[in-house]
């Protein structure tokens, strides 16, 4: 399978940054560049045809969301290469801290929830 289908949900006010839509269904590549840091379009000019790849993980998804779904105020979602402090991430109803955070490898049908705790007090 070359793509992975995911269900993404936003809560706690984060949906305001994503077209005011709580629920999204997306497809992302199953394999992504291994060197992906801040941009999905980064390429290493080594003159080698076979680029190192890795299975798509949560870190990749966060940047994919920022580059493809986020409509405004990227700094309210992403900071220092990961989600901003105060954003709770659940992977299939489980804290991403139990699944290895950004290194969790996404599977087809996964449900990822991003909840902001900052739009309120």
């Amino acid at each position, binding site marked *: 399978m070359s793509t992975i289908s995911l269900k993404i949900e936003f809560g706690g006010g984060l949906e305001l940054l994503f077209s005011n839509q709580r629920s999204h269904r997306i497809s992302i590549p199953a394999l992504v560049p291994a060197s992906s840091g801040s941009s999905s379009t980064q390429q290493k000019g080594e003159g080698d045809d076979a680029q190192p790849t890795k299975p798509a993980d949560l870190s990749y998804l966060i940047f994919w969301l920022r580059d493809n779904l986020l409509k405004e105020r990227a700094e309210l979602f992403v900071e220092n290469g990961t989600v901003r402090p105060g954003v709770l991430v659940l992977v299939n109803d489980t804290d991403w801290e139990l699944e290895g955070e950004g290194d969790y490898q996404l599977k087809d049908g996964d449900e990822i929830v991003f909840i902001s705790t900052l*739009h309120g007090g």
Partner: protein
Amino acid sequence: MSCGNPVADADALMQRRKKYDKTKNCVKCKVAEGNLVIRHAVYCKDCFLHLIVHKFRRALEPTINPKPDGPRRTTLKPAGNLLIGFSGGLGSSVLLDLIHRCYIALDKSTMPADGGRDHPRHERVWKKVTVCYVEVCDAFPGMQDKTHQITEYLKRYDELHFVCLRIQDAFDRSWWEKIGGQRFSANLGVTLPDEALFIQSLSSSADSLDSLRTYLSALPTPTAVTTSIQTFTRLLLLHTALQSGSSHLVLGTSLTSLAVSLIAGVSQGAGFNIREETQEEWTPEPEALGPTLVPLAETESNEDRKKSRQGKRTVRVVRPLRDIGMKECAAWAWWSGVTVVGKEKWGWAGAKPGIGTLTKDFIVGLEKDYPSTVSTIVRTCGKLAPKGEVSGTCILCGRPAQRGVQEWKARISIRSRPPPADATDKPEEPAELLRPSLTPYLCYACHTTLTSKSARPVPSPWPAASQSPVVSLPVWTEARLASTKGGDGTEHMHGEVMQTRRVGEEEMKGIVNEFLLDSS
């Protein structure tokens, strides 16, 4: 030999520290796989939800009875009703949901297993529960009015009374009289731009919205604006609690928010009231109360009514979510289907973040990487007992004021005085020296809020607001000033009168003459 290069040698990179202790199984039931990590402990969803209810009850229930329980747990019998301070934020939404489940809907899943069917815990604890929302949008330019959204949101909870206030009610005499505050005729203001904070009569009374905006525009820093709005909100809630016959006011301050307010409070000089930041007993000043303040139950006899009016009414302010972090609140809200209306950030064009905002950014960042630190902050602050004598209550914030504040400030301040207009040692006019000032009535934190200036020019939130040198005061402050003996504010609330004046050389010599050694 390892070169230490992670690309060549996989072991060169240090393993990332796990965010949880031991295994991924729930630390409570030890059976189910965990769903959430809270300060390195793993919980499954079911155990987590029960834990939140348990922590909430544990923080609130010991405070319900007027006197703390003895060795045996007694029935919960509060002295009055319950008022919930609701801001639309995450904490207050979770608080409202928990209060409703545990005390109104009597959701069986929130009841402790012990006690049995007829346990007194299953009866109604609170006769009347009121929710109070204070709309602050009129204090900040361009902020959205969420009153309608909040009103619609609250309809999902039955058997709740709803009171909606606006932040400018703090300057509204008709609101003050409606809730039973002492009527007063004086029109007193303060020279806020002047550090001396002189009390003066206002030539005319502006409407409450203008008064609020003029007051905020005259404040010296963005921190002062945020702190003032928080103080006004607190006092509006406290007076609403009195009016609704509530003995308890509950606020949705989470563990994270509490850490923020403790550190931010100490940073602004409110260390003397550090214990009040967690829990406090507030009693209104007697001269501020009108004769009709307490709406009494119809069953009370005339004897009881007289007693209630004369007796001291106290509102206990409790923060039942103080052991529950922001992350736990978010997880509870998500798994329990609680939607959050949300609160907007407070700010205006050109304003730099104040102490509160900077503290929140710091604490939230800390919670992500070092989650136990936040609970350590609250635990450590809970062990602090400030030194110093209490000397009355602050006329602005209603909290205990520390004795000797102005004396201490004068000792530690370096002030430059303008040279005298002429060379002769003319004593200052007595009228000038005894000009009434708000200063002696204020606690250290409120005095600092009103007088501590920024080195840089601060853009006003309302540049078009009147730039009058004398601004209106909140109604509870004005009521107390108007009732002070003499009515001119010269008698100090705390029993001290302080004045400073330049002493001429001849006068100084006269005072120390008998102690001077002969020069011969």
